[in-house]
């Protein structure tokens, strides 16, 4: 799908919001959102994005939802190895390594 087609599709989807998207503008912003969240963009680009977000409620909601997603990933706890499993795994590895060394 071309950028124009995507933009048309997107503009059509937002017809009821009362907000008119500029052609390709939102897609251009979408492409940079991770870099924006990670604070990797030049200050003038950040300013440009902030201006767009201020004028485009859908993009603002979208960037917040992406920010929430990243925060959830960063804080997702994972189960740790139990002491028994750690010991068993260590023994297995040592046994296999010794077998290879022979």
């Amino acid at each position, binding site marked *: *799908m071309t950028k124009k087609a*995507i933009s048309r*599709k*997107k503009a059509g*989807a*937002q017809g*009821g*919001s009362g907000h008119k998207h500029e052609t390709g503008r*939102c*897609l251009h912003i*979408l*492409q940079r*959102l*991770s*870099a924006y969240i990670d604070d*990797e963009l030049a200050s003038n680009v950040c300013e440009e994005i902030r201006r767009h977000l201020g004028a485009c409620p*859908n*993009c603002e*909601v*979208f960037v*917040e*939802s*992406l*920010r*929430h*997603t*990243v*925060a*959830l*990933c*960063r*804080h*997702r*706890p*994972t*189960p*740790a*190895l139990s002491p028994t*499993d*750690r010991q068993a*795994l*260590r023994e*297995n*590895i040592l046994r*296999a*390594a010794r077998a*290879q060394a022979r």
Partner: protein
Amino acid sequence: MDLIYRYANRLCGEAEAAKDLVQETFLNAYRGFKDFRGDAQISTWLYTIASRACLRMRRKKKGEPERELSLDEFVPTSEGEFRLQIPVDGLTPEEAFQNKELRQALDQAIEKLPRKYRMVLVLRDMEGLSAKEVGTVMGLNERAVKSRLHRARLFVRRELSARGITEGPSEDVRATTQTSGGYDR
């Protein structure tokens, strides 16, 4: 060992496969230790071995190529798709994770990611490596890492949004939220 188990668990999504990957990683590290030049941190070297072992184990299991994620597929097409349809507003991630359905939804979304995207997301957003370190582990330049990371995040966002979790947090979580600061900004 705990570091690699955590990484393996996040990649594989289940304990037994993660243990197999840890074992494979340390055996490969033992075999290859003489080639370790010390120009990367040992943890980065172990992540690299684990990632390669994970890809090899996957190839043995299934032969089909992994699909590429295109930015086009993440452009929302209806009003509801912009918002994350899950109860997270005003909650810290720790509070939000008291919702079991949310934990499962996130795990399933990450598991559904094609593996090369999942690895980048796990290494960067969950293990906390820099884009440069992820590039070293995966043999990619930083630009490629950032491109994959962005697509992976958009994929997970879309999966969570599509899931539409309606169940809110428990009352005690809501009560503690009144004084908390919400998500990292």
